[in-house]
């Protein structure tokens, strides 16, 4: 069997109605995986949005995903960041922990180690804001589980290549 790879793909698209549905429909219709998908407008003057997709598949599937994406009429450019050299990938999470006593203190101490910020607090809860790689977020969330973790909201990954070259 061929190895399953994880790829981060950036797609520049026309910011027009239905474009996200087109991309998502392509993934569901053809049975591809989406680990995360984020989208926002990045160029107002030219009406362009950037979609960051984290996906998994065999090399042949990844190649198909890129070819199929490039076939969509509103897609301008595609970059497979995983293939094209070093890149920075970041995700943000808001993590709510409800606890008292030692657990509460321990959660705050770990948050400090992970450089998570407290963005809301009551006597029974914290909301931590944390930015980093998805792995770092996962590690922090695992640590919070026994300490009163009650809710998580994550953005999904955004990514950009390192160095001066641009899209």
């Amino acid at each position, binding site marked *: 069997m061929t190895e399953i790879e994880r790829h981060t793909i950036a797609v520049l698209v*026309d910011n027009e*109605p*239905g474009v996200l*549905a*087109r991309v998502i*429909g392509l993934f569901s*219709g053809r049975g591809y995986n989406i680990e995360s998908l984020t989208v926002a407008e990045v160029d107002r003057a030219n009406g362009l949005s950037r979609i960051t997709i984290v996906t998994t598949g065999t090399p*042949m599937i990844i*190649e*198909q995903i890129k*070819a*199929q994406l*490039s*076939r*969509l*009429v*509103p*897609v*301008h450019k595609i970059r497979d960041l995983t293939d094209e050299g070093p890149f920075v990938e970041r995700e943000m999470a808001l993590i709510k922990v409800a606890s008292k006593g030692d657990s509460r203190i321990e959660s705050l101490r770990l948050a400090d180690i992970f450089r998570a910020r407290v963005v809301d607090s009551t006597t029974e809860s914290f909301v931590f804001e944390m930015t980093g790689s998805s792995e770092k977020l996962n590690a922090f969330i695992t640590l919070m589980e026994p300490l009163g973790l009650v809710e998580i909201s994550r953005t999904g990954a955004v990514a950009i290549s390192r160095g001066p070259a641009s899209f």
Partner: protein
Amino acid sequence: MPAEPLSGAEIVIKALVDQGVDVVFGYPGGAVLPIYDALFKQNALRHILVRHEQGAVHAAEGYARSTGRVGVVLVTSGPGATNAVTGLTDALMDSVPIVCLTGQVPTHLIGNDAFQEADTTGITRPCTKHNYLVKDVRELARMLHEAFYVAKSGRPGPVVVDLPKDILFSPGPYSPPEEVRHKSYRPQLRPDPARITQAVEMIARAKRPLFYGGGGLINSGPKACACFAELVRLTDAPCTLTLMGLGAFPAADPHFLGMVGMHGTYEANLAMHGCDLMVAVGSRFDDRVTGRLNAFSPGSKKIHIDIDPSSINKNVRVDLPIIGDVGEALTAMLGAGPAALRGNDSAARGEWWRAIEAWRARDCLRYDRSRRDLIKPQYAIERLYALTRNRDVYITTEVGQHQMWAAQFFKFEEPKRWMTSGGLGTMGYGLPAAMGVQIAHPDALVIDIAGEASILMNIQEMSTISQYRLPVKVFIINNQYMGMVRQWQELLHGGRYSESYTAALPNFVKLADAFGAVGRRIEDPAELDDAIREMLDTDRAFILDVAVDPAENCFPMIPSGAAHNEMLLGPEDEAEKPVSEEGMVLV
């Protein structure tokens, strides 16, 4: 003085005329009334009133595929649009350029579950190449021109433009096609010259080359087909075509091995299996062509020329992908000159041809010709072919056994003469498609080779045929079964013919009569020629109901899950090569 602004509906008509459209296939309804009103007031566009929106799309497909132009459809909102979905999917699978205008409820009602509202852009997103919802009349002309551009450029396909009713009434600006340029959509047409050079070297080195052409050749145009033929002859290599590619290379040329794939010829499939170089041109390694993938052409290097990058390495990994228009790529390859293309190993080539001739000698399309009591379906098509040779003939088909027999026994010498539903396999395609072909070629002979089950799926279009006095011929291969279903039930499901027999078929002669056409039924092979001649000599629509052997199966056949060299050549093979468990779950 500025001209009076046009209404949205008038912009639609003007855009169609400026795009060179002469015929629209459609069906009116509340949401498109403004367009029908505008149609009423002009003479440049002809409207063909179909009897079901699916028929409109298939007719436009027949029109498009027999002319190489964009087919245009006009339907109303809600059910008008949903009825068009099968046709759109068919056009997407077979890469047919279609622009389908759908009515929509007024913009302020969208999302309110209004009468005859459907989320047309949502529903058609996966079954079109692209679609538009016009929310501002100032965008209308641009979107319409873009729709034509997208439909016909690159790999062609259907495009929907959804038109809310208020937009059709609003006055707005018009811009002509020349002023509209799509922001980013530019399919790559020019192939990479370095890869062309590499391809030429690979062809010259090959001992056992095979050209495998598909519908992309026909879509690219007559020049691509001519270049393909030149290349095949120059290199003295065998060639095969897919179902969609038939006609791209003259069937009479000895280099042609017949169709490839599940019901392709023995020689074509064994050549696929045994070649050392496969040159795929505008073909997409469909599962009906490849058979079992892990046994597909194991010893060959593969070159794949296609305009659609997503066709490359989708099913089969190739050694040299060339992205671009096949016509341009073939022209570039021929540019290398005969000396560069021809290999110098004539001994190897001779050996390859000897192997092929041995496969050919198996005569894989043979059937029992001794029967005098009933008509063999293959014989019926052979006679139809023989009696229509040297005529200006276009063939459409429905889907099933008759379609495969037509592909095997009707020989096409030029492109755009053969219209069939390949990718989607849409029963009910052939009659409306024939209608569209006849509209495009009023003086030509247009024949729908049909099955008695398929024809009933869009039989209402006989009424359209009658209205426009189209002399379409319907040649029904009537075995009383959904023959291909019955064949699979025989091969795979122990002969349990579950629901594949049609117990109450109509009297097709009376049915023809009811629609103002001429009908005849024959059961005796001795009558066949006379009946075909009568059909050809009748200048009206004609249904010839040919009662054929109900038990006949379509051979040769690569059963699902089998490889090219595991073909069944005839009934005697069935028992020896039972279909595998894994094969059964495949379609």
